[in-house]
């Protein structure tokens, strides 16, 4: 336990696996219910009693979602949006975090503080003047406009998260890099980034998912149906006061899959062992 070399005792194993299972249940149970609802048609969604042994399951809702809605298109747009906005935010954030952790200059602390102030005005009110700004630049109802709107919350996030990770990296490596005559960019790309890969991957994952799930800016800025993002599309299932539970839950499940895939891929970077050998080198 906690990286000891001794094997875990049976009791410790029980604790570990038991806890993991509990966490999994905690995380999954509501989603199981979403999944179950997505498989029910019409009034069957109200059959709470069948939660453990459901009957009358059908793929009708999934078929309906694919036929009647442009869910594929929504996922495409959301993926593109999240990808670009994450890449942009990461680039800016990596450089900024590097600057804050490895350089000293006047105004550094003030800047660090100021970055947090991007969050002081809640989005629910900030979106109006932000819309005015983007309108001035003719960016309303454009893809880049929405990307830029997302940068306003992604950049501070990536910067600060990466700051946290950069701070944990061993000084000796940077020193030895400098001694070897490495340029500052070289230190960043050859030493820091590889070591901070778990941090970068994490920042990427959360920046991606936040952009993916973002609703308000997308709703305000995008009026063209062809550029609808996934959250906007899913809200379309709230038809007046009669919610279409089945199709909405089906859309939610479909929506999880690409992101789950992304997460499983990105996990490769959150792996112990990248620092082994680096210090000795």
């Amino acid at each position, binding site marked *: 336990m906690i990286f000891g070399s001794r094997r875990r005792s049976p009791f410790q194993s029980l604790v570990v696996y038991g806890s993991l299972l509990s966490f999994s249940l905690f995380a999954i149970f509501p989603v199981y219910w979403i999944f179950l609802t997505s498989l029910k048609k*019409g*009034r069957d969604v*109200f059959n709470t009693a069948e939660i453990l042994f459901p009957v009358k399951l059908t793929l009708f809702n999934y078929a309906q979602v694919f036929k*009647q809605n442009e869910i594929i298109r929504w996922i495409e*747009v959301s993926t*593109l949006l999240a*990808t*670009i906005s994450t*890449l942009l935010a990461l*680039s800016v954030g990596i450089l900024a975090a590097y600057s804050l952790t490895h350089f000293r200059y006047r105004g550094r602390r003030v800047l660090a503080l100021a970055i947090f102030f991007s969050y002081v005005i809640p989005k629910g009110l900030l*979106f*109006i003047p932000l*819309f*005015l700004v983007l*309108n001035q630049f003719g960016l*309303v*109802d*454009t*893809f*880049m406009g929405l*990307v830029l709107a997302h940068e306003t919350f992604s950049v501070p996030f990536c910067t600060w998260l990466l700051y946290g990770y950069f701070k944990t990296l061993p000084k000796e490596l940077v020193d030895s890099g400098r001694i070897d005559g490495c340029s500052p960019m070289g230190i960043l*790309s*050859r030493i820091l*980034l*590889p070591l901070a*890969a778990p941090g*970068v991957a994490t920042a990427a994952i959360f920046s991606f998912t936040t952009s993916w799930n973002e*609703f*308000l800016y997308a*709703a*305000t800025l995008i*009026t*063209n*149906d*062809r*550029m609808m993002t996934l959250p*906007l599309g899913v*809200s*379309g299932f*709230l*038809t*007046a*006061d*009669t*919610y279409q539970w089945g199709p909405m839950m089906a859309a939610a499940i479909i929506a999880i899959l690409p992101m789950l895939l992304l997460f499983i891929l990105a996990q490769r970077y959150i792996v112990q062992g990248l620092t082994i050998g680096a210090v000795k080198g």
Partner: protein
Amino acid sequence: MRISSFKKMCLLFLFVLAASLSVTAQTARPKMRMWVDHPFLVKATEGLLKSYVLEWAIGKGVDIEYSQNSDKIMYPRIDAAIESKTLPDVMLINISWLPKLQRAKLVQDVTDIAKELNGNMGGFTKGAIAAVMTPDSKYNAIPFLGSSEMAYVRKDLLDAKGLAIPDTWEDTVKAARAINNPPTVWGWGHQVVEFDGERHNHAMILSYGGAIFSKDGQSITLDSPQTRQAINLIKDAYTEGLLPKDVVTWDSAGNNNAYQSGKAGFVENTGSIAVWLKANDPTLFNNSVFKLFPAGPSGRFIQGDVWVLFVPNTTKYPDMAKDLIRNISSKDNQEELMTAMGGFRVPVYIDLTKLPLWQDRSLKPLADSAPFVYYPGFPGPVTALALEEFKQTIVSQMMAHVLVDKWTVDRAIAEAVATLKRIQVSLNN
């Protein structure tokens, strides 16, 4: 990430950037825009309206971007557009937007087209006209769709207890008491908060002989014995457990879900539940009786709602916009749309209440409700204050203070009146 993958990242980045630019390029800006902030029950109906608009556009050789979304999307979008003065050319919106649009000086006089359409299909209903007419008899907008409410009754539960179908609030409470059997079924699924609840509360106060506003629309007359009667009726029923406790926090789908899942004996709602029952639950449909909205000692009142076609004065194509309105308000289109909506909305044109659609037993009470329908502000005119009050659900908040915070009725009424006075002051500035 080693160096080579860093370069890979750069390439990927550039590729993705190029892809994004191609997405941007595809969306060329159209000449006209229409926004629809109206929830449609069935996608097909929304498609119908869209088809009218697009056909018109093709016929005129005009590009139009048509956008219909839920109000979660439309509210912030319209607000941002109001602030930046970038509203579209035509909008289908609820009348509660009109005060804001008026204050932002975005209203366009559409009296010409309104008078023309008023000559069709028997003309607009009185309430619809009242909702869109300015004090100097000009039209702010064109009525397009209305709504009304009726009562849904679980006849099977009543029959089991040998009870007659109630018609007044008091009788409804009595019957609810008899069939109340939580957690299997709650007697009365009466919505008391949100827009639905606001409509119900208004109606109840009026049915006891009270009113929120005076006949000239200038005074706030909420503080009255009649208001207290209405509040106490709900309060006693709630405390007794005849209403699910959740009614104080339901959203607009709350009473729908309660009735549709078989957990409520009585609810009041628009035709949306009937539409759902017909499509999804024939058993429950057969066990249901559909009747007029309940009455009080001083009469029967139903708060209606209106959705209007609005043309902002910032549009570059006012004549085109009016022509579009003329087209989608045509007799054929209105009849087709009304029928397709299956009773979810009621017509704003008097003659349309005679459509065969309304003969169905599940929709007849809606058609019959016309004499009882009134609009925010009644017995006074539809004022900005009345619409603001409705949008902020002041009376519902008052009810919630009594039921949830356990305030005394007096305190709750006083707070509501104070809030209304504050709004009145801010509107007059």
